[in-house]
């Protein structure tokens, strides 16, 4: 019943897996920004090729990634048609009643779909090739300069890794509660939307109560094991910046340069 693709980590041996989480995080961050430079066919093809190369390097099968994309198909289609119907410019291609489709609108819609697609593929690639632990470690490390202005970077990273750690535990618990409520005649799958929403309340209440209990227990266990914040703490995981990470940064710089060049030169 619960099929999470977002945040799913696929442990494997590949060059993308072995990259330092910091270089991956920086790359994704940069990518999401430079994607907006692409407003031509050439630039969009470059973006698609970059994603394709990334997937090939990660050794994760293309169908696996597409299966993950299926869940956001609705959003993609929605944005596509919204742009298609409501922007104008260029030659009128089709006219059906109140719907007018213009050439520029069609091109723009395709570009926007490509934009969404590549952003999602790249971020999925990050979570598929990097364990949640590595991501939080990388984030904490990258954000550590903000500790100077008293931002609780360490606490935030710990909070994130604990919530990730508890997702499967809470899912298991939810399923247990659903079964317990179903055994007492509760119905989650049929009836009107209003009734179904109502059936969720007796599910959420016990779940919240137990989550609070867990939080209290966990805080006590952490204190008993000597947790007292970031001061004087050592780390098991050591992040190592290798040459391949520098190479990754170079690739990103190159990609940005190409996209800027294409945009400035005004290629088709």
């Amino acid at each position, binding site marked *: 019943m619960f099929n999470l693709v977002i945040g799913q980590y696929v442990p494997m041996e590949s060059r993308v897996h072995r990259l330092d989480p910091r270089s991956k995080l920086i790359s994704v961050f940069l990518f999401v920004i430079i994607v907006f430079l692409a407003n031509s066919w050439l630039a969009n093809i470059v973006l698609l090729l970059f994603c394709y190369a990334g997937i090939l390097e990660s050794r994760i099968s293309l169908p696996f990634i597409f299966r993950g994309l299926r869940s956001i198909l609705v959003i993609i289609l929605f944005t596509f048609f919204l742009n298609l119907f409501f922007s104008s410019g260029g030659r009128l291609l089709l006219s059906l009643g109140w719907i007018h489709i213009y050439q520029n609108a069609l091109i723009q819609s395709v570009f926007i779909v490509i934009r969404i697609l590549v952003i999602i593929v790249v971020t999925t690639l990050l979570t598929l090739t990097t*364990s949640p632990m590595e991501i939080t470690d990388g984030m904490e490390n990258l954000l550590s300069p903000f500790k100077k202005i008293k931002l609780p970077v360490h606490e935030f990273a710990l909070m994130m890794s604990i919530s990730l750690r508890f997702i499967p*535990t809470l899912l298991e618990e939810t399923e247990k509660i659903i079964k317990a409520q179903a055994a007492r005649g509760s119905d989650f799958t049929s009836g009107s939307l209003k009734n179904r929403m109502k059936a969720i309340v007796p599910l959420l209440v016990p779940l919240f109560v137990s989550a609070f209990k867990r939080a209290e227990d966990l805080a006590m266990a952490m204190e*008993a*094991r000597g*947790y*007292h914040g970031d001061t004087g*703490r*050592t*780390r*098991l995981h050591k992040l190592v910046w290798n040459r391949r990470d520098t190479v990754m940064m170079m690739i990103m710089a190159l990609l940005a340069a190409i996209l800027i060049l294409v945009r400035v030169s005004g290629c088709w």
Partner: protein
Amino acid sequence: MEKIIEVSGVSYFYAEDDPWVLDDVTLSVNKGEWLSIIGHNGSGKSTLAKCLNGLIVPQKGSVRVGGFDTKDETNIWEIRRLVGMVFQNPDNQFVGATVRDDVAFGMENHGIPREKMIDRLAQSLRLVKMEKFADSEPHRLSGGQKQRVAIAGIVALQPLIVILDEATSMLDPEGRREIIKTMRTLNKEHGLTVLSITHDLEEAVNSDRILVMNRGKVVREGSPREIFKTPELLEKIGLDLPLAIKLRRLLNQRGISLQDTALTQEDLVNELWTLRSTM
């Protein structure tokens, strides 16, 4: 014998108007022993455990661990390193994303250098026989395995004592056996002091010493043999007697006189089959 924990005259209440949860408790824990504290729910035994590593500080009396007083804030982290604690719920004390991360958590908190951490991590996982699961995630482990990981995380800190706070009460019989066996090895072969807080008397039978608590007071103290001499008291405060003791009493009522030395099932079986033997 060297005393590693000394509790004297400790009283504690959670809120001003509540009755004392602990009422003038005095006890000591000797180095290397296996001490069981038994008592019914609400007898104050878990509160006592939390006093021992400074999670709570009693309003009256003092708790000294390895010479440090828990009242003194400056020692609190050293005390928590010396007193390891395994809690009841295996899920709610698993902090790390994997077994390796969880065992390292305590060491990271205490600022142990990374090289040492890696050595001790491997060592303590070997001690609890979980080395094959180093990269496993918690939801793929059984309750007993999770508790063994918790023990490994404590052992890695090289503590003086491990407190099992009802650590086996949420486990299946298999998991319970695993934990007891692991702790027994650590106790007998590595000299680790164990304080087991439980309401399972079967588990307490094998300890060196037993303390019986009721309504915040220590009501009895002695070896298992001494404690089980008067099973009526244990029943009166709501504890379930071990099968061997129950059976022995029923047999005695039927006129089969058995010595009261049999505490475990094995003792009893031995006594029964040699009963009519004249040799």
